[in-house]
């Protein structure tokens, strides 16, 4: 693929409450942008130096922090109809309940961590790692290139704040959920990165299986439980074949992590009765893809076009 992983995505935007106003947050070119804050980078620098942050800037910063967070793949959507219902308002209510008075203040790394983090953020405007700027879209990291230090994504002591950030990003809506999952998958594509974490391969295998199996199930009209999906490593797009099984039709599927980023996340996994296994090139709303008509068929090049609602094979 010659284009960046996000080339098959169209823009997405939403509004958030920020400073008493309704502000637009936009995803484009692989990153999240606070439209009403044209000098977001400058504001973030000031915030890091002790100035006040804003909800818009917090989201932009969170996006940078979590765009290689394996937990996003574990929690995020598996398929287009898989709806995450937790809203930003509900999340805020849960969090405020947790930092209220009571015995839970004794929980090590839990409520106290939240409370500390909330106080720290209120005072300094800084909610996390000082390396945040290196991860900002348009900052130190070129879009489409892997980061040097992928996150483990472990919940752990003090990670309530991190989990809350991730859930706030997912609460932006389905368009952002799929884009965040794509960003995370892309971050873990680079050679050698998966070896940095003992957890990476199992987590990515689960992420891929949990998304490829429903897609193959829809494609072939079978139960996703009949799909044996796993990671493909090495050259080529992978493998899809019927597997012999007693009394049941089983399909053996091996796809690379990049399939999650460039095919599944933009909604190309199964289009018009074909299983898309790779993107050759894309410039939204058009994508040139490799697709299978049946498990036994050879891959064929196809052009897909997005009509604003969904993808379809172009003549």
């Amino acid at each position: 693929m010659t284009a960046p992983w996000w080339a098959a995505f169209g823009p997405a935007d939403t509004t958030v409450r920020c400073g008493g106003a309704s502000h637009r947050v936009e995803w484009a070119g692989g990153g999240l942008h606070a439209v009403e804050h044209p000098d977001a980078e400058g504001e973030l620098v000031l915030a890091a130096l002790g100035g006040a942050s804003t909800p818009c800037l917090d989201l932009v910063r969170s996006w940078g922090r979590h765009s290689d967070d394996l937990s996003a793949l574990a929690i995020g959507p598996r398929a287009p109809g898989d709806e995450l219902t937790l809203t930003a308002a509900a999340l805020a209510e849960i969090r405020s309940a947790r930092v209220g008075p009571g015995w839970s203040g004794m929980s090590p790394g839990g409520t106290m961590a939240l409370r500390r983090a909330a106080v720290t953020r209120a005072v300094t405007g800084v909610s996390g790692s000082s390396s945040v700027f290196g991860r900002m879209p348009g900052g130190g990291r070129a879009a489409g290139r892997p980061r040097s230090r992928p996150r483990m994504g472990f919940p752990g002591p003090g990670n309530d704040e991190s989990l809350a950030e991730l859930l706030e990003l997912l609460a932006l809506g389905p368009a952002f959920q799929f884009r965040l999952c794509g960003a995370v998958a892309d971050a873990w594509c680079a050679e050698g990165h998966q070896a940095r974490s003992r957890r990476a391969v199992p987590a990515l295998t689960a992420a891929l299986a949990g998304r490829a199996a429903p897609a193959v199930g829809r494609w072939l009209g079978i139960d996703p439980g009949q799909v044996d999906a796993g990671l493909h490593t090495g050259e080529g797009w992978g493998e899809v074949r019927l597997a012999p099984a007693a009394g049941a039709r089983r399909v053996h599927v091996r796809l690379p992590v990049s399939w999650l980023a460039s095919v599944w996340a933009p909604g190309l996994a199964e289009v018009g009765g074909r299983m898309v296994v790779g993107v050759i090139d894309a410039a939204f709303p058009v994508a040139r893809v490799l697709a299978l008509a049946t498990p036994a068929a050879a891959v064929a090049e196809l052009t897909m076009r997005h009509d604003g609602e969904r993808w379809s094979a172009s003549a």
Partner: protein
Amino acid sequence: MERLIAIARALASVEALSVDEAQAVIDELRTALAARSLIDPAGLFGDPHRRWPSAARPAQPAGPMLAIPIGARTRGLVDGEPVRYYLSSLVIDGGDVVVGYSARFPPALLRDRGPGRRSAPMFHLRDTTATDDRGGSYLAGFSGGGSDGHWDGSLKFRPAVPAGVRWLDIALVGAETVRVDLTAAPPPLPVTSVPLTADSLADRYLDQRTLDLLRDGPREQADDDEPEVVAIAAALLAAGALPADNPALGRLATVAAQVGLGLPASLAGVTPCALPPDWLAPPAPRDSDAGPTGMLPVAAVLPEVDGARCAIVGLQSEPGSATLQIEASGWPGPRAFSLVGEEQLRWTARDDRGGLYAARHLGGGYGNGRATFRMGLHPAIDPRARELQVILTGRTAEVSVTFPLDWQEGL
């Protein structure tokens, strides 16, 4: 969710996953379910199960752990009402002195005694004191559990008892003093210690559950659920923790056939194999209400296992149940009793007739590597049994102690 937790616990227990990894998988599924409103999201943050890091175990106290049987009953009056106490054994561990007790309070002490009055009679236990042969005096903190006037637990004396003290006079509130000879030789009880290898972790883990299946039969399941032991076996096989030709899987296949349990396709290739002679011994009667009634001041110190050392303070038997009181040091911290870590050390028992007993944690207290807790034995102790072997299985060793069941009269 329970099934996933059981599998995560199994994989962590056999070290196919770290506890943190297993916990992370559970956390993420819970979060994913909460994000879809499939479970209550209120517990998303600050869950003590998942936020405690794996803690290093505190070092063992200096010196050996000693246990001295007491086996004394005493009685007295509290607020004019008769109370009865039983002191089972005394454990000395690095200067700490702990005494196992049972207390019985009459209904008159249980009533609401109005504002400012103690309505829970067990709080009288904190008025327990002790003096030694050198004129030293001690106060006791108490812990334990119970209800309806029955209270069992341990008394821990402060300050630490210095070396060389010959006896303690223990004064429970309203009762006659009980003198404990600290120079008494511990009872000579046979102990065993068998080293275990890490590569047999998964075999032993599955065998224990297979044995539970043999002893208790399949638990009731939801229609679409396979029994937990089967799911665990399939997970151990899928994770590569056990090969398909492992005898533990074969033993599960044999037991499953015996109890009429079908195995899923993933275990279809497993060949049944012979069961160990121990497993074929006549089990202790299940659901029996014929257990003996009595107390036993066991005072048995087990060999160290996985850095933990334990003393069995007492055994209390009733017709339908039996309870071991344990004192331990170097015991896994609270993290080990979280969602996926509670299987590190496992208790079982066997009587001299071959009857096997499972042990269930009934509660206890933990702090700085010290632990005091109770383990319930199931089924009730066979009244014909004359000896009981209590077995503690860890990662690196399986240790046991055997003691006679010379019951003392209960309270």
